């Protein structure tokens, strides 16, 4: 786990409710209200997507929603900036390949 529960300056982290999310169909535990990218790092996942042409891995880069390096497919919607999107119980996150694919369910909404 890569969490920082205790810190010399910041207060100890208050216990948050745990939620279960799925990354490439594997369940992981996240904390309610945290950003997807943070939950992934906490669980040791550092690759968010692979690029379109050269299929190179990408991770977080700016962490404030500007660079779009950390985009993933979330609940069937591709290109979601995971550093500024909060987790939700049961959320399905897919390591995105290239520009991603919309799931049919979302398209028919």
């Amino acid at each position, binding site marked *: 786990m890569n969490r920082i529960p205790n810190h010399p300056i910041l207060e100890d982290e208050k216990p948050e409710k745990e939620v279960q999310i799925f990354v490439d169909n594997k369940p992981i535990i996240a904390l309610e209200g945290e950003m997807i990218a943070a939950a992934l*790092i906490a669980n040791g996942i550092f690759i968010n997507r692979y690029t379109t042409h050269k299929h190179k*891995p990408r991770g977080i880069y700016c962490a404030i929603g500007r660079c779009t390096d950390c985009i993933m497919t979330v609940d069937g919607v591709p290109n979601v900036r995971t550093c500024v999107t909060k987790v939700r119980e049961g959320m399905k996150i897919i390591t995105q390949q290239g520009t991603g694919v919309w799931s049919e369910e979302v398209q028919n909404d």
Partner: protein
Amino acid sequence: MIEIELAIVGAGPAGLSAAIEARRAGVDVLLIDENARPGGQLFKQIHKFFGSRAHKAGIRGMNIGTELLQESEKFGIKTWLNGEVCGIEDGHNLWVVRNREKSEIVRAKKIILATGATENAVTFPGWDLPGVMGAGAAQTMINVNRVLPGKKVIMLGSGNVGVIVAYQLLQAGAEVVAVLEAAPRLGGYGVHTAKVCRAGVPFYVSHTIKRAFGTDHVEAVEIVKLDSSFKQIPGTEHVIEVDTICLATGLTPLTELAWLAGCKFNFVPALGGHLPIHDDKMHSTQNDIFIAGDISGIEEASTAMEEGRLAGINVATELGYITKEEADARSQEIWDNLNTLRSGYFGQKRRDAKDSMLQNGKEVIKWNIH
């Protein structure tokens, strides 16, 4: 369409300060921010700020953020979070996408752009590997999200961001293997640099990163010495095992909306690049558009707050809520603060660049004469 007297884009230190001053004077304000919470980058600034006591020096950035939010709440400032301003038209109409689903037009008599800045990248082979990130990104992860993006970190850049984040990475439990600086001398405030030094972190001046190694993630970094014209010296390379490379290589103002609005620009490298020209009232070259904070030149949160106040007061004056005499007196006070903040070894350069910008603003922005 929603009509408002003043729309402010960005709820960081500048935008919040502007909103508070304008609202205090009686202006109907709408504050818009694309993030889920206001405060901009203040909440990751867990170190104590510089300046005099009047500038909240000695207070941690995150606590200043809390104070600003409390004040903004006290004044009941209307705030749209998760609101992305995607366009600006006729110098008055903002196109806002709310909560990523609903589009709205906000028609504002006056607009203050306080959009902030984004981190610069430097490129080298392997710079796109997971594990290479902005220093601010690492800072967000450790201080706001409370997760550690890496355990063995190298920092490129010894300016304030570089040394402050290096120290905060140590506080968060990471190992910082080195701080690199391309220039022959260190760039950060002594107090922050010294803390990193005392922790035993080696500093390499006249050094940069040649490349990063790794397949799915950074595994090592090759550093190289630079000569006096910043050229790599062959044979001086050496490889250090790291899992994270942080880039603290400056910031660029987020000026898209100012470009869209037709503001005239100047190129001022000392302040981060292309900047909307502004005058001493934070007025841009567009009649009803003001700017404040990093968009007007990369500085610090303390100067951003003063500029925000200046913009807020001057908007309130133009809308008739404050007399010109009162505005002048209060502006003078803020300018005294700004000049103090822009003094000393590091501040003077910014002061000089700002002065030339203001001189230019005086020549270009005509309506202020009346």
